[in-house]
């Protein structure tokens, strides 16, 4: 047929040598870039499919955080009189719930992604890392919808963010990278040890309480803050409040520790993933 169309249409390099896996294999970024359209289609599929055959569709993306906000406000804000840095408790908690739910969703999806896509893994070749990356990105649309509600609440409470609002995209990126860093580990482990699947729910629950979502990080004594930063989500959640609600101080030290932690987990995760991805098709 159209043989000359081949050269611009096909993805793989023209010479491939297939050999037994050996030692350190870094993720081939150039190859990942060649497959960027597949990444796009995988994300697109996850988004398209998520609310298929539900009666209210994407409204679920708003109901979940709003409902959580109601519960938190009732029990922690109203009954337990949790301090909220002088900000109305509902918006205080909602502002933290958004990055948290993005994270929890991305983490769960990416951890289950390789196992969930085993029909692809065992039948087609493509850089395996695309699967957890796509899973992590799929939650951004939900996040965007819930974010609109936050903007509405800010108008209602008459809150005008300062210049710090420009940092929000960076925080979102950081949430995604954090989820990916942990998700790479769990996705690869899940292939071999299905125990991961049962650990996930419990892990995200504990992690939620270790993150200043329902309470301000000021509740944690100052001298523990560097240690607290080992939880990367702590810095992000406080960062969100700082950027959008203008809480007095930025999450400086906390965030610096968090970034360091995430980079270490990410590098380790990429390495571990790359080391065992060749065996995915055999053991999944």
């Amino acid at each position, binding site marked *: 047929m159209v043989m000359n169309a081949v050269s611009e249409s*096909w993805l793989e390099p023209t010479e491939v040598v297939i050999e037994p896996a050996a030692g350190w294999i870094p993720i081939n970024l150039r190859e990942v870039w060649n497959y960027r359209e597949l990444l796009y289609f995988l994300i697109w599929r996850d988004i398209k499919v998520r609310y298929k055959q539900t009666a209210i569709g994407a409204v679920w993306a708003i109901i979940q955080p709003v409902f959580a906000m109601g519960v938190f406000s009732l029990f922690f804000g109203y009954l337990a009189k949790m301090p909220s840095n002088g900000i109305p408790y509902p918006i205080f908690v909602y502002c933290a719930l958004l990055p948290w739910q993005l994270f929890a969703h991305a983490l769960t999806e990416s951890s289950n992604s390789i196992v969930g896509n085993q029909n692809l893994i065992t*039948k*087609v070749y493509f850089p395996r890392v695309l699967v957890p990356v796509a899973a992590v990105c799929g939650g951004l649309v939900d996040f965007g919808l819930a974010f609109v509600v936050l903007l509405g609440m800010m108008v209602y409470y008459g809150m005008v963010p300062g210049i710090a609002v420009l940092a929000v995209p960076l925080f979102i990126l950081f949430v995604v990278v954090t989820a990916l860093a942990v998700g790479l580990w769990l996705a690869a482990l899940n292939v071999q*040890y299905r125990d991961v699947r049962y650990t996930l729910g419990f892990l995200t629950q504990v992690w939620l309480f270790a993150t200043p979502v329902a309470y301000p990080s000021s509740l944690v004594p100052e001298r523990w803050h560097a240690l607290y930063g080992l939880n990367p989500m702590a810095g992000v959640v406080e960062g969100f409040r700082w950027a959008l609600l203008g809480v007095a101080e930025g999450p400086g030290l906390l965030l610096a520790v968090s970034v360091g932690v995430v980079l270490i987990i990410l590098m380790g995760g990429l390495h571990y993933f790359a080391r065992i991805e060749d065996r995915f098709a055999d053991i999944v």
Partner: protein
Amino acid sequence: MSDVVLRCEGLGKRYEIGERERYLALRDTLTHVLYAPARRLRALLRQPPAEAARIGDTMFWALRDVSFEVRRGEVLGIIGRNGAGKSTLLKILSRITKPTVGRARLRGRVGSLLEVGTGFHPELTGRENIYLNGAILGMRKAEIDRKFDEIVAFAEVERFIDTPVKRYSSGMYMRLAFGVAAHLEPEILLVDEVLAVGDAAFQRKCLGKMGDVAKAGRTVLFVSHNMTAVQSLCGRVMWLDAGRVAREGDAGVVATEYMQVAAESRLEQVWLDPTNAPGNESVRVHSARVVGFEGVPIELIDTRTAFALEFAYWNLKDGARLNLCISVYNQEGSCVFTTTTVNEPAWHGRAFPAGLYRSVCQVPGALLNDGSYRVLLLVVQDLAHILYKHEDIVVFEVHDSAEGRGKWYGKWSGVVRPDLEWTTERLQARPDPQIASCELSAGSPNGGETGHVPKPTRGGSR
């Protein structure tokens, strides 16, 4: 034209037994770690077990020492029994799994088709799945855009293109899935048994498309059980057996040899001891055979070959009037025909003195379709009661003669495959409604018969 685009050197793949099916629970690894000191201690005290023996127990080589080359534009068929390593080889070449030893070098862009419809999502529409599946198989969006209409036309799903594929019939689903796959244009195409699914019309379409691909000068590796397709599409065939290359060479030669070995035939059974042979106090079987013309041993029966079914039996009751009756069953379990010795000229209707007899039934060529057949033997007395019944007394295979097929490589439909006489005559030079209507009125089908399956003409009504 003769450059090598694919070269495998000593390719091998070892699985731990059960590895494909089982995943580890963390508990297993923990116990393994906990018991490690005890194991090491035991190893110190005793002679360590021989490594080779241990490997023999828990390891399994799905592929071993496979070396071959494929030149540009060549179509290589890969055949073998289930579990011979065909799919493992394709999985290694398409980079889904790594070899344990050896290496493969591929020059050119590789497209693999190990399954039709990989990644199809039931909730997405036909249109959406074309894009998703195309991307998964390695097409760029621009390329899919360009081929979209062609794919839809090939799949014949124009009306349902915006319907979720979960509402598709399985036929539509398969056509759409194959439609996407058929529009892949890699330089090296790896295809695994994808044609084994679907109905005859679908298979015809797929095989036709495969033929086009082969003719277009693409390099193809084609795994199949369909020997007719392999022989027609491939120039060279590699036969894998238990992970190793058993034979490699000209498609016709290797495929024929494979069919002879692979056929699960029971062409001959002999019981030398009449006291112990199957039967009863009235009759015992001595032997049953499938033989060629005039009793010569037969190697391969194809749809053109005449052959004979030969039975030898002991009559133990002096004076019994015996008849044989045989029924031939096909793979689907349908009885293709039943025949008896009532037309046998020498002994039918006579009293059989005790002794050893032989009856032979001649089966003409161009009667049975290709496939596997089982024979049921009945020994009948006085045309009324059954003395003895023996199921599957012989089992034989009829192969496709591949004659008169044209471009159609799939299963030839029909229980039988007779060679029937046809005639065609030219009735008239120019359309002339008057003559045409009187000449053809008796035979022309009336009513809106639009199906593409030709209906039998009503020749007898004339």
